[in-house]
Each structure stands twice: as C-alpha cells, then as structure tokens.
C-alpha cells in the first residue's frame, strides 16, 4: 500500500481518475459526475486508505476479525453485542495524525470557497454497495447539516462504524460477503440547501418503458421523498423530446428544512397553495430530465438520480445532481414490459423492408398471430 501525500483525501473536482477501490461507489460517482460536467455539490472524499490506515494504526483489525469469526447469523443478541463493541472501538481509538491533518486541511480548503462557513453532509461510500443486481443501498449512513471540523470528524468515524451495524454484519453473513478487505470511504460535501428535491429515473418504472424519465419531486431536503415519508409530485417526461407525458400533483404535506438556530433540519407543514401545485416549474422539469438523461448517456444504462434545487444558487444554475446509480430493480427483466405483441409475423414476408401484417392486425384489432 503506497501513501502519496494526498492519498487520504481526494476532491471531487481535483481532476484525478475515480478509483472505485479508493473512493467507494458514491464518491467515485461524484468524481465521475464532476469530470463529466454534471453539477454535483462541491466536496471531497476521505478515501478507503484513510480508513485502512486508521484500522491499522488502531490495531483493531485482528480484534474485529476474531469477534466476527465466531458469529452465527441466528444469534441476534451476539451480533448486537459484537456490533456495539466494534463500533465503540472505531469511534474511540485515536485517528493517526497524518490522516487527521489531511482531512482538516481539506475541510478548510472546501470552506474557503464560501463567504461564510456552510454546513456539510457526511456520507458513507462503501466499496461494496450498489452493485448491479445486489442493491446495498441504505446499509450505510448519511449525516446532514454538520458544522465545524470536530463534528465532521466525529461523523466520519460514525460512517466508518456503520460498516459494523448489526444489520450490515448480518447482511454480509447471510450473503457470504467476506469481511477481508472491507473498507469505507466517506464523502464530505457542501450541504445542499434544497428548496425542492427528489429522484429521477430514466425509465417509466410502471411498465419498463425506457423512453421516459420519471421524476418524483417534493419540497425541502430529499430524504423525505427517498424514505417515502411524503407523497411527491410524479412527473413523466418523454426522454427524447423532453415534453411532458403526465403529471400527478402529490400531497407533499411536509418538508425538511434547515433551522439554523437549532442547527438541524426541522420538519414543517407545507401550506395548501404549495401543496396544490407542482413543486417544479416546466423549465425545471426539463432541466431535471435533461440531467437524468445526461447521466444515463454517461453511464450507458438506466439511471436513478437524486437531484436538488439549491436555494443558495442562482436560478438556472441551482440544479445539483446528488447521486446517480444504475437502476437495478426495474431494468433487471430481460425484455421491457412494453414489447408489442404484433410484429412477430414481420420476419416471414419476402420483402425485407416492408410488411403489412402489423398494419393489418392493428386495423383489425387482432394480434399478429391471429390476423388471418
């Protein structure tokens, strides 16, 4: 393992290649997005090397391995107790000064871009999460609206510790995922001050139609949409020409907004006027769809993106991409649900470029097979 001067942190816009091993899925994605000109909130990754160096310096690697070796997935109370002791160790052992100083310096560099200190989000970025076909989302943690370096450092440790929640331990046990080489990167990112946020999927999940972008949108921070605590607006846009296909105004009864006096997010009611209309303007719908489409084009497969409109940024450049990942649930089936029943007979005709069978069956209201 080599340690280059900046190996413990990497800025998303630092121009370095995103290495999944080093950054974990989430941070690698943010670096890639930034490099591709897709607007993600500025920030940096605390790399897996930082975690590895910490575990190494703290001398807890063998201790963890020993504790896990004896565990059975059926013994929940033993799992809970092992989880608690490992997480306690991770949160209390000293972080090596070379790691600590790099994180502190990166945090200061990030803050130096703003007039006054902005809150940040700290998110885990595991190397094993979100593999296509094995969604691991939600197994690690996200901490929002953090201010001050000490708080940030504590939450980086909390992210590290989240590798060993009872749930994560059980998941690995049950899925035969080895703990050797398990590591964790952490994203430290300017906290998006969401006026409106949501998710966008580059397909229609109700029927697998890939010619649509489906947007869920609600007020405030997006966690309420992601976790299903509010009924968002649902907007379906044609992916090619970006025009509106359908829209359903969701209830959006509440929003999470920052309370700077309390230093945390508070849930508040949304008034009737804002509930009764779409949370996005037509121009914003087009911008979100364009962003999702760009993400899909970049990655070459259907995407599920989280986005937000940042209150602090000017209209027109306030749309931020928070996360993009392959859409793993709906794109798994081999054939789209929308495959027409009719054109099966087409191949049988002599003229290669032309067949009337589809037309005939459409006119007679029958399927291709039974047209005659």
């Amino acid at each position, binding site marked *: 393992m080599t340690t280059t001067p900046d190996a413990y942190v990497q800025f998303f816009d630092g121009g370095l290649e995103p290495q999944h091993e080093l950054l974990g899925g989430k941070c690698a994605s943010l670096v890639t997005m930034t490099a591709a000109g897709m607007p993600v909130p500025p920030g940096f990754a605390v790399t897996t090397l930082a975690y590895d160096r910490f575990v190494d310096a703290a001398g807890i690697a063998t201790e963890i391995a020993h504790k896990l070796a004896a565990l059975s997935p059926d013994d929940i109370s033993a799992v809970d107790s092992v989880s608690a002791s490992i997480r306690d160790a991770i949160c209390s052992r000293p972080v090596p000064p070379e790691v600590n100083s790099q994180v502190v310096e990166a945090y200061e560099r990030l803050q130096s871009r703003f007039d006054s200190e902005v809150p940040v989000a700290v998110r885990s970025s595991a190397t094993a999460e979100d593999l296509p076909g094995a969604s691991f989302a939600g197994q690690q943690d996200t901490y929002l609206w953090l201010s001050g370096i000490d708080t940030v450092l504590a939450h980086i440790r909390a992210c590290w510790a989240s590798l060993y929640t009872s749930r994560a331990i059980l998941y690995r046990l049950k899925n035969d995922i080895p703990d050797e080489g398990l590591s964790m990167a952490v994203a430290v990112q300017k906290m998006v001050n969401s006026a409106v946020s949501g998710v966008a999927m580059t397909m*229609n999940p109700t*029927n697998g*139609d*890939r*010619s*649509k972008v489906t947007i869920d949108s609600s007020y405030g921070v997006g966690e309420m949409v992601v976790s299903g605590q509010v009924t968002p607006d649902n907007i*379906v846009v*044609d*992916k*090619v*020409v970006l*025009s*509106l*296909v*359908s829209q359903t105004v969701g209830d959006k009864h509440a929003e999470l907004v920052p309370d700077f006096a309390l230093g945390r997010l508070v849930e508040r009611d949304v008034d009737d006027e804002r509930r009764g209309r779409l949370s996005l303007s*037509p121009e914003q719908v087009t911008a979100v769809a364009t962003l999702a489409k760009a993400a899909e084009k970049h990655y070459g497969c259907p995407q599920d993106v989280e986005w937000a409109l940042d209150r602090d940024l000017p209209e027109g450049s306030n749309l931020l991409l928070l996360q993009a990942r392959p859409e793993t649930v709906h794109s798994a089936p081999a*054939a*789209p649900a*929308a*495959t*027409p*029943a*009719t*054109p099966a007979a*087409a*191949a049988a005709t002599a*003229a*290669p*470029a*032309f*067949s*009337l*069978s*589809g*037309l*005939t069956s*459409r*006119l*007679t*209201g029958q399927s291709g097979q039974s*047209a*005659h």
Partner: protein
Amino acid sequence: MTADLTAAPVPGPTLKSFPKPSELPVPPGAEGWEDLYPYFLSFRNLSGAEDEKFWFCDSQHWPTVFKPFETIGGEFAVKCLGQYNTRHLLIPPANGIEFKIHLGYLYMSPVPVPEAEVAARVPEFERRAGHYFQNWDSMLDGWHTKVRATIAEMETLSFEALPDAVPFDDIVGGVAKDGSEKLMESYDRLIQLCYQNWQYHFEFLNLGYLAYLDFFGFCKQLFPGIPDQSIAKMVQGVDMELFRPDDELKKLALLAVEKGLQAAFADTDDVQGTLDRIAALDGGAEWLAAWTEAQDPWFNFTVGNGFYGHDKYWIEHLEIPLGYVKDYIRRVDEGHQILRPVEELVAERDRVVSEYRDLVPAELVADFDAKVGLAATAYPYVENHNFYIEHWTMGVFWRKVRQLGRVFADAGFWADQSDLLYLTRGEVRDAIFDLVTGWAVGAEPTGPHYWPKEIERRRGIIDALSSQRPQPALNTPPAEITEPFTMMLYGITTEQVQQWLGDDDTAESGTITGMAASPGVAEGLARVVTHADQLGEVQEGEILVATITAPSWGPIFGKIKATVTDIGGMMSHAAIVCREYALPAVTGTGNGSTTIRTGQRIRVDGNTGRVELLED
C-alpha cells in the same frame, strides 16, 4: 317523423348526447333552406336512422355555410375519400364516411365494415395497399403526371358569350353547330375534370395516413405515452412542396434586398405601380423575371382552403404575395433570418429518430426501421397533395366558374359573376340551356326574369344560416371512437367528444385546453383572426388565435410567437407550420377564437396543450 315518439330508444341516464338534427332550430329567415341543396344532401330521415347515428361536423374543411354550388367540394372530396376505403383498397375495418348537409354545414358519419366481413377483406387489402407501398415512388410520379394533365386541360376551357352569328367559316366547313354545345361541353368537362382530380386526390392520401397510423400505433405500443409530436416529427417532410410558395416569396425578398430595391415596395397594394417602380431601378428587370417565374405554378395558392368560391388566390390578387414580400424585406433589413432552418430541422428529425431507435428492443429494430421508413416515404404526400388539388386545381376551377358566371351576368341572368354560386351545379346546367335557347331562337331567356329575385331569396337564407354556428356533433356518440380515419383525419377521439359534451367544465379558471401540437411555451398578446382579410392586422410578437389557419398564411408565422386554433389536430396546417418555425401551438381548442380577445395577455403551452388567459 315517427307517430309514437316514446318508442324511440332512450339513451341511458348517464349518457350525454348531442341534439338530434330535427331538434335544432332553423334560424329565422332560413326556412326552406333544404331546397337550396341537392335532395340527397339533407337529412330526410327516411329510414329513421339519421336521428340515431352519430354525426360530427367537419368544420375543419367547411367552417362556413355552403352556397348551393359550393357543395361540389364536399361532395367530391368525401365521396372520393370513401371510394378508396370501400372499393379500391378494401380497408378491413373501414368503409367511407357518409355525409349530409344540415342547416348549411357538413356533418359526417364514418361507415364501419360489419365485424363479420373484416377478416375476408384482409388479403385483398394487403395485396392492393402492398402494391402501392412497394411501388410508391413510380406510382406517385404517375400521379403528378395525371394531376398536371387534368389542370392543363382545365386551363384550356373557356366560357365566352356566343357571337351574334355563326362564323362564315363554320358555314363553309359545314360544321352545322352553333357553338352552344361547346359551352355545355365545357361546363360538363370542367365538372368532370374537377371530379377527376378529386379522385386522384385520395389515391395516395388514405395510404399516407395508413402508413402514418401504423407507425403511430407501433410507437404507442413500444413507448406508451410517447407524445404525438414526436411521432409527427419522425415522419414529417422538411423540404415540402406545400411550403414552396412561401419559400418563393422569401427568395424574392432576399433578391430585392440584394438588388437594393426596397424603396419600390412602399405601397404594394398598388401592384402595377410597384412593379413599374421596380422595373425602373437597376436590377429591377432581374427581380421581375424571378417574380414572373415564381408565379407558375406556386402562386396558385389560396388564402382560404380551396372549398369556397370566394377564396382568393395569390395569382389573381398579386397584392397579397407582394405584401408578404414587402414584409419579408422589412424583416431581412431588421436582421432577421427568414429562411426556414432546413438543415437544423433535418438534423433534429434525425436526432429524434435515432434516439428512439436506440430505445427499441433489439428484436424490433428492423420493424421500427421498416415502419418509420414507410411512413417517412408515404406521409409527405399527406401535406404535399394539398398544393396540387386544393390550391392549384381548385384555383383554376373557381377561376373558370367565375368566367362562366360573367357570361351569365353579361346576359342579364344576375348582377355579379359570383351570383352563380347560389345555383346548384345541376341548375347551372339548366341555366346554360336556358341561355343558349334564348340566344338561338332570338327570344329572351327566362333566367333574367327568374334568377335575380331567386338569388336574393337564397342569399337571405344563406345569410340567416350563417348567423348560427354548427353543432360539433349530432345524436349520441358511441362509448368509444375507434374508427382510425375519423381519429386521424379529423381528430375526433373519445376524449375530444367528451370535451365537447362537457365543455362547461373546461371553462373554469381561465384555461382553454386543446391538442399539444407544437412544443414550447410563449406568453404575449393575442390577435384573434377569423378571416384571411384580417391577417394584415397581425403585429410582430403577437400570438395568433384563429378558427383555423391555411398554408398561405405562412408569412404570418415568421412574425408571431405562438398559435392557438379552434379546429385541427396534430397534422393540421397550424401544427405543421408551427413545428417548422419552432413556435408553440395548441390546436383544436374548440372555442379559443370566441373566448380569447385581441389584446388579451395569454400563455400558450404547446407541451401540455393548455392556454391560460392571464387577464380578464
């Protein structure tokens, strides 16, 4: 009338209906209107079925009341449409469209093929349609030859007063005919040639729609909810003959600017004066040569739709194209780009096709290619034929009809050449015989004593009918409209019918809805135009609100920000031109031109088909 009205089937309690034809009031002064039209065109309800069948009004082609002679366009067009479905192509589910005139307006009722007979028609349909689709280009070449030959022959017909005496040469030659037969033959031939090009009109039209419909259905299955606009974009022609007249004017404007002739265009209503001023300038001769060159055939272009005797054609009203050229010159001088961005339109079309194609499952890509290819080949006819028939053929036709009308006017049958339009075409034939009989025997014809009063009576009836708008439809609609041509050609869909029936609900909150015909959003002041003569009032940057638009309104589209029409679907003229000019359009609103006022601020959303009235 049935004796026992209670025996008539009663619609279910929740089923809303349009009025029965017999329930509609006859406007005061229009009593006896039925006798103005051929007997077979009005509802006689001989079998009792006419008060049951669903009829919709074709106000898209015939927005105003027919004068008796003008029924020729409706009769020929809808009859010939039907013959191709029923007798040429044997379209499996669809025969023609039955049509009647009620209170001066044309109502239509599609005729389905009985369920049991549909399957038997399939092999013949595939054989016949297949032949056209596989020989499209060569057969379409043949079509152009046939249609142009018809027009050329029509041009040779002339209607002139008979001389005082048979020419001496005819005596010497033993011709032994007085020339009246020529007048009668020419009239009959004129009608026949008109009929002929209306038969040709539909030779490719139904097929063009079918190819479009096939691709449309395929796309809707593959990509549920795909905007109609996207499908239209993929198959729509770009370099179109229908746009050619407008393009000619743009070229003339650019040439005038290049030669520095702007000053000569100060008063284009004075056509001869303007042309004289141009001739006097350096480079003027070259411009005049181009002006003359462009006229044949491209000025055979009407500001109307070709179905009315009063439609004005550019070639007979040169102040119209000259005024448009003047306007284009001004815009060029102001630095505007007036030529349509043809390359960008082609690039955008190619992008849209290739992006959808990329989303087609691999096993269906070949089908997609075949269908989009066929539709792109066949569909442009749907727009281009319009120039050859509605504009060119009908332009010549109406000119000849006016010429004949003048012969009668000169003989004292009526005051004005256009008064002939108050006769049916059968009555015109009788009147010709009346005219030549009086001339031959040396006595007075009856016409001058009969027609002036009769024409005034009929004018009163037509004016009275015109005071009342048509019903959108008659009788009880079917639960669902499924007939493909009704939907495609007329935009008569289940939703549309429901909207008509529930139109009070849509009036709420200052919003009008219609078809999202061309994407984009625009806000501005409305200019309501209900007649081509009002086009001169349209100001730069306004939003055009019209009953319906016509291809020759093209020059207006360079000035406006968006369009709203009462009538028309995805493939209506307004929709096509707005997509060309990248202007938002909402079509088929039903009541846009009567709800919106000139000067009112409105917001047109061509993505959703909504028009918001931003002030009262």
